[in-house]
């Protein structure tokens, strides 16, 4: 009885120490590397878009290729916040009069709006065609948010051991800022 107990315990510990522990460490490092790659690539893509003022299908494709080289699948959210300047009119007795002021409004375009331009339905057009380029203007804001879909291997194994269900992404990157150029 005593010997059997120690044997079982030793077997379990061996399983944890020699299999799970190294595996988890490796997977954790893999997640770290994936995070770093995604962060670097996001920054690169966003900077390219902000410095040129447009997005082309080639830029987007290269970005998605590079981040998917990490082996995870990602949810990519692009958002383009368009600044538009509108004059402010006052209505006095049914007459509109210009107040001399203006107001800056923001219009947000999501990834559907952007991807519809990059990849139109009649995709006979070549990738470098001008109509497949998404243009932004100076002063607009452009953001990219990337998070992994589902669970990474490291999270999945940790969840299995600890009997929990992680519902937040292991890799989350959001970068962006103002568009600085209109180089089209």
């Amino acid at each position, binding site marked *: 009885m005593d010997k059997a107990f*120690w044997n079982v*315990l*030793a077997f379990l*510990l061996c399983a944890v*120490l020699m299999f799970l522990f190294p595996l988890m460490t490796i997977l954790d490092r893999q997640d*770290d590397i994936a*995070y770093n790659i995604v962060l670097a690539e996001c920054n690169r893509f966003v900077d390219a878009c902000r410095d040129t003022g447009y997005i082309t299908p080639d830029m987007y494709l290269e970005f998605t290729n590079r981040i998917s080289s990490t082996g995870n699948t990602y949810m990519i959210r692009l*958002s383009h*916040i368009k*600044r538009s*300047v509108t*004059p402010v009119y006052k209505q006095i007795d049914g007459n509109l009069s210009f107040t*001399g*002021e*203006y107001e*800056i409004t*923001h219009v947000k375009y999501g990834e559907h709006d952007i991807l519809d331009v990059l990849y139109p339905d009649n995709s006979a057009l070549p990738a470098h065609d001008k109509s497949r380029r998404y243009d932004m203007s*100076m*002063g607009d*804001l452009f*953001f990219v948010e990337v998070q992994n879909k589902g669970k990474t291997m490291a999270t999945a194994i940790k969840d299995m051991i600890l009997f929990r269900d992680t519902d937040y992404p292991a890799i989350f990157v*959001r*970068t*962006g*800022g*103002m568009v*600085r150029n209109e180089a089209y």
Partner: protein
Amino acid sequence: MKLTSFAVIFVIIISPFIFTSAQEAEAAIQDQKLRYYYDNIIDNAAVDAAFILSNEGSGLTYTGNVKITDARQLAAQAFFDSVYYSFNAKGNPSLTARVDACIPVLVFLESEGFTLYALDEYKNINGQNEIKHIWFPMQHYIGEVLSDRFIIRYTLEDKVYVFDISEHTLREGDYSEFKEEIPYFKDKQTFENLRLAAVKNSVEEKIMAYMDYYNQWTLGRSLSVKLEFPSIDDADWKRALTDEGIIVFAQGFPVLSGKSYKHYALGGARIIRKAPLTGYTYQGVLYYCKTDCEFLQNTVASDPGFNQDSMIYFSNAYEAAAEGYFPCPHCRP
């Protein structure tokens, strides 16, 4: 007991320690990521604001019969827009208020003085108290009293305003105009040191005074951020204070472990204008080159066959090439 049993007991004893230290390391890594994320957002936004300042808002506002808006106002707005959208907080008043509370002070450095754009409480048009970023009056860069009689107001350039205490006169001009009366202004380096010290002290003093004031009125309110003046490297100060630009102080964003979050970002807005390019015709060929090109000055200009009237100026290489000029093979403009 056998050796395996000892090993098993050893592992059982050691494993809680390994587990806790692994958790701590994990928290530290996540904390680092979070801080980097905040830094990135603040730096990016500061650069955006500086970009608007350096363009003086051109292209981002329409002119016409509308009054010319302050570039500063636009820059501040761009800064907060950028930060709000980065945190996905735009349109969510409680989140934007939270972000506002963590970025209480922006300092705009201008040639003649600096302006604070900082959180303060005021009564709005409906008589309610509101906490918002507002513009503080512009402050000048005042230095120490020199030779017991001159009070100097510095600018970010070589220009100074000198107030003579004994004669009650105020004069302005380049620092070198005063070198007879003020011995410190004899050499450029001493003047530069004095100017930097004056600018640094005035800015620091004002920010510290504001932080004290802020800490007092946040006492008892639900703003839990206590402002502290961050330690800024001398090199960073120097970089910030020689340029027109913007300094941002961000503090108190939530972090996972360690010290509370403190960050400052600098955005320089000075545009360094490159020297124009010179275009000329030499031996029947059109060339453009740098204005200080040695080949132009030594060989071309001294050639009797060179027509001085053929020299024209371009603001950049594209313009020159568009006119049919070739780049000079010697200076490679």
